[in-house]
């Protein structure tokens, strides 16, 4: 998916202590009072947030935060499970009765819709509405979110969405309950693709332009009652949603209330105090400075932590001298002191040290370290030896693109310090946060190195390694292959795995490909950032969901006592 925003929390299976049964997590080890206890029906869950949602239009929004939120108001053909750990990343049917039936060797996929599905308007959800929603992804103005529909489903090259080009012939709707997708080539994991936001149904003929960004048409358990962009968002129950048609969403509370634009330090103070409606509140990951303050038993009980499911890495631009030399890149792999990088983002409670490209939440991932050093503090002797071999013992200068944001600056300075003993001078190039991805995604503007993150769109190597390392995907704008690695062996392996029909075998092969890529040292995996959240004392049914950058699964969370 997307680059991780890194401001917001990421990650996952906090609730290690929770012995959850599917649906609502129940019975945590810490009596019923903890955030994992059973949620009651009713009440309003408060959400305190710093950044507002990027888009409410499902064809446009695409990051861990909105994906989680979309499940409250939208439904897709399939979706991720609602449970901690691996259960949460398993694809389960949602609008469809199954996770899809392939035919024609995996090139054609058929889904049948369930009964009793309605929009908030009361109109039934038909296969034509699903098709209308999907075909919006081809609209050049709307289709800026999940790219998978466009990449995988066959379509005429000139197709520009239903508003401009009309009907898309490669998606068939033989009757109101059946939808058939024709793909460009066989795709074994298409059942996961239809869980993407672009597969949200939109009533046929509606949703042009910005209309869905201000007034979404809900198909899920909640609808929007009030929305002030950048300030507040209020959800109330969508009474047309039929619980019997939905095995995933517990949807216990009567509503949700978001407050945006709060200072992160203010959020932490409010969560620690937990006064008034803040007892019913959830928020993102705490600040590093707050970690030491939430060590009391009372606050610890309200704390949840787990992996964010993303990898923070530093891309080494292989087209620039001297980074085009494999030995130089390997020397940097050895030299980076990942301990100091981790301390820069808040220490061991806020991040784990990364050694492989894929984070532990990805299926088939192998744990290995090609460039080991004591306590991950960097092996300067090995690095020096490699630089001498490459003829760069005298040092050189590199430019590191960084965001003008304290955490990113701190990481950049840590890298600068780590490379200094090798006589590598790192110049930090601060770029405004709003234009950062645009700059580093434009090969003509990007410099030698850049720190960024990547989260899988669903926890499989297919959404991690090919977008970042397929040399044929290097584009003049919006490029995600930061290292600009174009290696024949890697490209061939990517094609080979894409042709596998068995998803488990493919995931395993991606684990091996991860190693193969790291041998070429195009990126330095730095951290798997964690989420560390403080929730209100009245919050129940909460667990961190592996599939949503480790955010609290919104469709399962609720209040312990709805009457409070």
């Amino acid at each position, binding site marked *: 998916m997307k680059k991780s925003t890194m401001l917001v929390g990421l990650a996952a299976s906090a609730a290690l202590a929770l012995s959850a049964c599917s649906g609502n997590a129940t019975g945590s080890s810490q009596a019923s009072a903890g955030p994992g206890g059973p949620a009651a029906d009713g009440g309003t869950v408060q959400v305190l947030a710093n950044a507002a949602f990027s888009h409410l239009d499902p064809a446009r929004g695409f990051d861990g935060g909105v994906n989680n939120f979309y499940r409250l108001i939208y439904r897709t053909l399939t979706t991720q499970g609602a449970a901690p750990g691996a259960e949460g990343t398993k694809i389960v049917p949602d609008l469809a009765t199954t996770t899809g039936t392939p035919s024609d060797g995996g090139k054609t996929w058929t889904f049948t819709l369930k009964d009793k599905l309605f929009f908030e308007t009361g109109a039934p959800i038909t296969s034509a509405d699903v098709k209308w929603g999907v075909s919006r992804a081809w609209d050049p103005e709307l289709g800026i979110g999940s790219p998978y529909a466009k990449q995988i489903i066959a379509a005429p090259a000139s197709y520009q969405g239903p508003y401009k080009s009309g009907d898309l012939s490669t998606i068939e709707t033989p009757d109101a309950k059946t939808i058939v997708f024709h793909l460009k080539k066989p795709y074994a994991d298409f059942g996961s693709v239809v869980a993407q936001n672009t597969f949200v149904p939109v009533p046929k003929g509606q949703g042009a332009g910005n209309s869905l960004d201000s007034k979404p048409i809900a198909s899920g358990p909640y609808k929007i009652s009030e929305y002030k962009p950048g300030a507040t968002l209020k959800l109330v129950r969508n009474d047309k949603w039929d619980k019997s048609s939905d095995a995933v969403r517990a949807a216990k509370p009567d509503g949700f209330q978001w407050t945006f634009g709060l200072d992160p*330090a203010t959020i932490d103070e409010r969560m620690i105090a937990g006064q008034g409606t803040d007892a019913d509140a959830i928020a993102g990951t705490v*600040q*590093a*400075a*707050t*970690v*030491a*303050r939430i*060590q009391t038993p009372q606050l610890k009980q309200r704390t949840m932590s787990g992996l964010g499911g993303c990898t923070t890495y530093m891309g080494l631009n292989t087209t620039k001298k001297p980074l085009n030399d494999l030995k130089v890149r390997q020397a940097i792999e050895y030299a980076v*002191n990942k*301990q*100091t990088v*981790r*301390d*820069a983002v*808040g*220490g*061991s*409670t*806020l991040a784990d040290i990364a050694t492989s490209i894929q984070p532990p939440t990805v299926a088939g991932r192998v744990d290995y370290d090609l460039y080991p050093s004591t306590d991950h*503090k960097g092996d300067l002797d090995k690095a020096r030896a490699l630089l001498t071999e490459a003829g760069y013992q005298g040092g050189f200068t590199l430019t590191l693109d960084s965001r*003008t944001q*304290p955490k990113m*600056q*701190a990481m*950049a*300075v*840590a890298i*600068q*310090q780590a490379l*200094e003993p090798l006589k590598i001078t790192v110049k*930090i*190039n*601060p770029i405004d946060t709003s234009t950062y991805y645009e700059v580093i995604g434009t090969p003509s503007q990007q410099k030698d190195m850049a720190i960024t993150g990547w989260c899988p769109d669903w926890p499989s190597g297919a959404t991690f390694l090919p977008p970042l390392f397929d040399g044929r995907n290097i584009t003049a704008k919006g490029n995600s292959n930061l290292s600009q690695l174009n290696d024949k062996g890697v490209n061939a392996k990517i094609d080979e795995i894409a042709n596998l029909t068995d998803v488990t075998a493919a995931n395993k092969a991606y684990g091996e490909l991860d190693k193969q890529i790291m041998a070429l040292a195009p990126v330095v995996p730095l951290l798997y950032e964690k989420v560390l959240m403080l929730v209100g004392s009245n919050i129940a049914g909460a667990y961190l969901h592996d599939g949503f950058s480790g955010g609290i699964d919104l469709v399962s969370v609720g209040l312990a006592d709805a009457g409070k």
Partner: protein
Amino acid sequence: MTATPALLEVEEVGTPAPAGGPPTSTRRILTTITKDKGALACVLFIVIVVLMAVAAPLITKLSGWGPYQFDSAAINSDLGGVPHGSLGGISGNHWFGVEPQNGRDLFARIVYGARVSITISLSATLLTGVLGVVLGMLAGFYRGWVDTVISRLMDFLMAFPALIFMIAILSSLPAGNRPVLLVVVISAFGWPYLARVIRGQTMTLANREFVEAARASGAKDVQVVFREILPNLRGSIIVMTTLAIPGYIGTEAGLSFLGVGVSPPTASWGQMISSSVSWYSVDPMFFVIPGTFLFLTVLSLTVLGDKIRSVVDQGEAA
């Protein structure tokens, strides 16, 4: 940082136009200050800060830690990077403790931060001094259209929301040589406060007998301005610039605090205070140390400037 204009405006009103008498001698300023304990303490502290700035590399060699050197052992990674030990990790190893999250030595960063503060404020004072004196004298001496142009420019700059403009311009400029940019931007908005006073005094001086005498004996404009008028402005210039330095130190720290000052990893007091804000409850020393240094430096310079002013005023009144 808004103190700059406000402070100087007050001074301007308070500085009486020279009514006669001999120009204040530097020696008399020195003797008065050495007799005043408060002023002496201020001088002492300023000397310490300046010495720190000048000898920063030597001092950090002595203390053993450079300003950019990380010390992972001094912080607790499990608690978000809080320094080990009480009072922000103050120990024989780290005299002022360490910065949370990376363990950089605070003493070294204070010493190097003094460099930034002193360099930028002195450069800005020098630049505003030259601009203010030259333009102020031109306006006051020539009057007419020269005065109109310069005075309108001064009015424009003084009425301008300087702080907002500084933030806007510094954040939109590419990351070039930050300290130079800071000096230029601070000076661009700072010189009118000095120039206005100089202009007024030049106007009165230009009508005095000794100026007329110089003219009558055939002195050119340049000679009159630099030989006759400038020496008589010395007292005001000393007072105004001494009082401007703390203002510029504050402005630099303020701009760094707002994230548009010198870029990391360069140590700066304002930046240290800015990053200490989120740590105030778990590591208050991280805020107290740079805050104290900034406070004392600005206070010392202000008190000293005030003393000099009263000496100059007495001299002029005599």
